[in-house]
């Protein structure tokens, strides 16, 4: 067979394949990375691969073409291309879907198209999805590239806020967003924004206002590992990633959101509590004075097995 190109495909913080891309590139495979958030000539790159032997590795939601992306995020991006469009156009010799959200691996509406991929890389054994007929490979969690070490304390409790629902807050604006969250953030809490459109403005504005900011492009696993407690908002993947990594997760629900709905969605997740902003502030005050109250939680998440993944990609 002639030369095979490995195409890694996704969008912004939902593109989680960079560690795998780098790993394979270092091993000498011909790899092309298409993060649609950064790449303005994705269409040309895809066209250049037409009639080549392509292995397509995707972490984007399957239904997000331009129109659906706009419907999902209320944000129009001309860069968006659906993985289904790529599949149809390139007709890859092999296709692999890698979910990017540990809390909700597949959206309900997405399941209808999963069978179009030859393989799905899953973070743990999921026999109940066998009806799809794909080859499900348990390779660990793609966003966790190293082992999780047990926490140690130096008399202080490190608290990190893995911020999400960014599009909603982007529409609220810088000042309003800070106003909502500042009482929590100014209690020595470090925030990490998702890698998304206009995020730099938020990092800069929050820093200027005395908030400790963790770089948005850093690996989320590093952020989780560096903190004893992870605060989160919304239903993002980090809730599950931190909880499974043995961190106490506090999902903070502003007063205009439905906390019963959020509690219900998290009912099967370990190590997570849902609190209002005021409850969270009280909890932080308490735990920072009494770090011995911090529960000793167990990690259940497996790091990504690069060797196993590559073996399945290239054969």
């Amino acid at each position, binding site marked *: 067979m002639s030369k095979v190109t490995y195409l890694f495909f996704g969008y912004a913080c939902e593109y989680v394949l960079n560690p795998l891309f780098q790993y394979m590139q270092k091993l000498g495979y011909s790899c092309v990375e298409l993060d649609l958030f950064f790449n303005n000539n994705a269409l040309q790159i895809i066209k250049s691969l037409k009639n080549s032997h392509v292995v397509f590795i995707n972490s984007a939601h399957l239904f997000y073409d331009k129109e659906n992306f706009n419907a999902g995020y209320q944000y129009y991006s001309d860069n968006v291309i659906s993985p289904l469009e*790529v599949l149809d156009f390139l007709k890859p010799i092999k296709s692999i879907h890698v979910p990017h959200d540990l809390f909700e691996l597949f959206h309900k509406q997405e399941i209808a*198209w999963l069978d179009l991929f030859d393989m799905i890389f899953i973070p743990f054994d999921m026999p109940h999805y066998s009806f799809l007929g794909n080859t499900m490979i348990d390779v660990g969690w793609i966003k966790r590239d190293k082992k999780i070490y047990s926490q140690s304390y130096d008399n202080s409790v490190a608290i990190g806020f893995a911020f999400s629902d960014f599009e909603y807050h982007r529409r609220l604006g810088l000042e309003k967003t800070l106003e909502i969250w500042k009482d929590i953030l100014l209690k020595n809490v470090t925030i990490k924004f998702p890698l998304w459109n206009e995020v730099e403005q938020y990092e800069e504005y929050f820093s200027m206002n005395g908030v400790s900011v963790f770089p948005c492009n850093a690996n989320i696993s590093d952020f989780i590992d560096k903190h004893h407690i992870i605060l989160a908002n919304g239903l993002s993947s980090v809730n599950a990633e931190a909880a499974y990594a043995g961190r106490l997760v506090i999902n903070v629900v502003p007063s205009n959101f439905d906390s019963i709905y959020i509690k219900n969605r998290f009912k099967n997740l370990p190590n997570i509590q849902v609190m209002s902003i005021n409850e969270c502030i009280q909890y932080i005050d308490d735990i920072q004075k009494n770090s011995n109250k911090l529960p000793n939680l167990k990690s259940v998440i497996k790091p990504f097995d690069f060797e196993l993944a590559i073996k399945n990609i290239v054969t």
Partner: protein
Amino acid sequence: MDVLNEQSRLLSELDTKILSLMNLIQKNSEMQISKEKNLLTPPSDSSFLYQPRILFPSLNDIDGNFGQTSVDQYHLIQEFEKKARFQQDKETQLFSSFLTYYHFQKNESIILCSLFHLQHISNALTDNITLTKYQPTITNLNKIFITEIDKFSKSNYFFIINPYIANLILLSPEMIKQLSRKIKTALIFPIYYNQNLFSISWGNTFSSYENNEEHHWRWAVGSAPAHSLNITNNSLNTKNITLKYTLWITDDSITHFEIYFLNQYLEFSISHNIEISFELSVPPGNHQLTFHYKNKPIVNNTDARLLNFAIVDFTLLSDDGHILLEKNKIYSQDNNIDFNPISEDIIRHALHGNGFFEIESFKQQLNPIKFTKPSISRFHLINNFYEFPMKSLLEDEFESDVIWYIAKRNATLHEGHHV
């Protein structure tokens, strides 16, 4: 597990037997309708007669709710099964004409779903295409389809040539969902195009359409005692309509009529031309309105036909008094007409909600063969589907017979599409 499978098989057999029994009961009952009831109202036990005992996949599974009763589902399935059996010539015609529009690529695989064994159909395809024929079991297809298609491995295309089998499958979201998992590229099928809510077709004992400046009519001719016309409800639900017409009779003596429609019945005697109006409850599908006429036909000086009676200025009114079908369309159809109750919206809704991302559709005229430009819709997270690119779907360009659907699992990469 084996015990469960065995139970499931026995239950399935039992359901089939119950359905056959119900059919027998219904037919028997229709033949013995009480003549004591002289109004066109259903007998009180009609709900029992028409209540199917088997469970059809729920149409309510589709967002937007078809809103049918189980009686309507029963009529639809019966109608589709019946119509599907008379499509042999049309299957050939439809498939051949489609091949003038669409070209399959080398090395692609097709499952060809046809009720008939059509050798020449497969010959129309090139040698480089892997063809698997699937001749479905039409009776109770809604129950066995999923099991039947489970035998096939995944193919590029699943091509349903028979429009009524496509209709049957489109009634069930579960069938569509399971079917989608057998398809890599696209599901292809034709649907007859019919814009009217109701259609009328006249049996062969009615002479051809006649009219003058004031009236439109057809004569019932010949020596047969019964004369029928078909009323088709092209919707998914039972509709209440009013029939209005004038009966011209040829005999000055008392003329006795009996009129049957499903389990509704009317009898009366007249000695002169009379305007008649009555309400009918019409389930989805094609149903006979039969006139039993007991007098002898006459031959007059100017017309050699054996004339019985004429149905004049036949009108169909909705329950709010609107005319449902123009006069020229009421009188013009001689043969069994095509039945298409499943609207554009419902078809797209059903497919986009069950694994088909992009649907290309186009209208076709069969003679001479003409196609419209394709229109495309795509799955939408909120609205189920959207038109792509932004233009109205299926604009009329000529009188069409068929709409073809190419329901793709994937999406076409379009350059420079802007919302």
